[in-house]
């Protein structure tokens, strides 16, 4: 098989009422690629992520995952979503389930794995993100950084084809940002396909293959991180970078 991109968006449009949030977005992400999406608040980055696993519907254009168009509703959609992992800004761990249950629920209920196999794998993943010893705690008993690492383990347990991160460190206290970025960096190094909305420029430089800059619902420019940070070609990107880098 020729290498079709893993994720493609073609001329994707999305409105919230009058508001035109995504304007003719074209984007394709190759297998193993790490794409960082940056842009001002309100530019449509979260919406972009959410359309890719159809937490938001689109008004026009087409999205494919691994060559398959996103199904409309029902079981086909659920199956496809299980291949697209999502890590949220606010973690969204299931509050009434333990850490271990959070990580095993998908494999057991969606992938139909046995409980034993799911737990064995979950403990490996929790170990890998550094929280195996907290497996029986509830999310509220963990720090934000720990919760976000559990959320990453939960997404990984589904063995997704692509992982999406929507500002995964924005809700964290500063001292916890690095522990989450470290996990993400090692995933990137291992060849996981990732789409990451973040303002962590260090992570973008270190781990990304490509930076996509969005403003007002459009992709304004995209380039390798070094090129983008050194020579942004658009005025809007220059303005944006000068604002966040001057902090």
């Amino acid at each position, binding site marked *: 098989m020729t290498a079709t991109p893993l994720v493609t968006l073609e001329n994707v449009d999305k409105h919230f009422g009058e508001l035109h949030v995504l304007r003719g977005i074209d984007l394709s992400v190759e297998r193993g690629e790490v794409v960082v999406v940056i842009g001002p608040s309100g530019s449509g980055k979260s919406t972009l992520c959410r359309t890719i696993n159809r937490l938001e519907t689109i008004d026009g254009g087409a999205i494919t995952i691994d060559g398959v168009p996103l199904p409309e509703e*029902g079981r086909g959609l659920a199956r496809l979503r299980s291949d697209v992992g999502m890590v*949220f800004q606010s973690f*969204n761990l299931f*509050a009434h389930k333990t850490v271990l249950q959070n990580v095993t629920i998908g494999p057991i209920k969606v992938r139909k794995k046995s409980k034993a196999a799911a737990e064995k794998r979950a403990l490996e993943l929790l170990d890998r993100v550094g929280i195996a010893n907290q497996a029986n705690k509830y999310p509220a008993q963990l720090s934000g950084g720990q919760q976000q690492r559990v959320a990453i383990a939960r997404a990984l347990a589904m063995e997704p084809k692509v992982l999406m991160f929507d500002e995964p460190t924005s809700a964290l206290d500063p001292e916890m940002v690095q522990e989450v970025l470290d996990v993400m960096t090692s995933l990137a190094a291992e060849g996981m396909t990732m789409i990451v909305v973040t303002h962590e420029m260090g992570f973008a430089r270190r781990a990304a293959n490509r930076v996509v800059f969005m403003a007002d619902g459009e992709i304004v420019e995209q380039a390798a991180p070094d090129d983008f940070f050194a020579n942004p070609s658009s005025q809007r990107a220059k303005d944006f970078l000068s604002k966040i880098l001057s902090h």
Partner: protein
Amino acid sequence: MEAFLGNLDKVIDGFSWTVRLTLCSALFSFILGVVLTAMRVSPVPMMRGLATVYVEGIRNTPLTLVLLFCGLGINSALGVALADSVKWDVFWWAVIGLSAYTACFVSESLRAGVNTVPLGQVEAARSLGLTFTQNLRLIVLPQALRSVVGPLGSVLIALTKNTTIASVAGLGVQEASRQMKLMFDQGIAPVIPTFIGFALGFLILTLPTGFFFGWLSKRVAVAR
């Protein structure tokens, strides 16, 4: 007081029917209440509509009318029997009426509980690939239920007291309040002590229910 205690077997028999009515109706109204709640949050407009019409319709009808409809309407007029003996036939019709009515309040409580579950929980479950029903069964309803244990306790207490209407509304279940009235009618018990005795009997049923649900609601509360 002696007369009251002398008829203790009647009192106990009455309350045994009260408890049976309460437990059976609690079970069925809980099941129906969950189904109604699921319908009311379903993505299918038709389901939502049906459930809303049911809940708003029955909830706003006096319980006496609901039970009269079951007793005089379906049971007597249409001659539909649910059991061979009259005693059990009226019992089951009363359970149906009480359950149909109480389910509306269970559903209202649960729906308030569903509203306390943050949208992020639902989205995380969706993004794992859980289907709508799995999401409801594994994530939303368990959290909703935990947040409305207290209100459900109040619904159960109201149900316990509402069982007394089952005899007034033509369904001659021999529950506690009917036993009391029979004791008055037969002139075998002085009025005031008997009243107090039966009222205490209801307190003995409902007070622990309230304490238990209060304790349970703290125990199962979801920390966020």
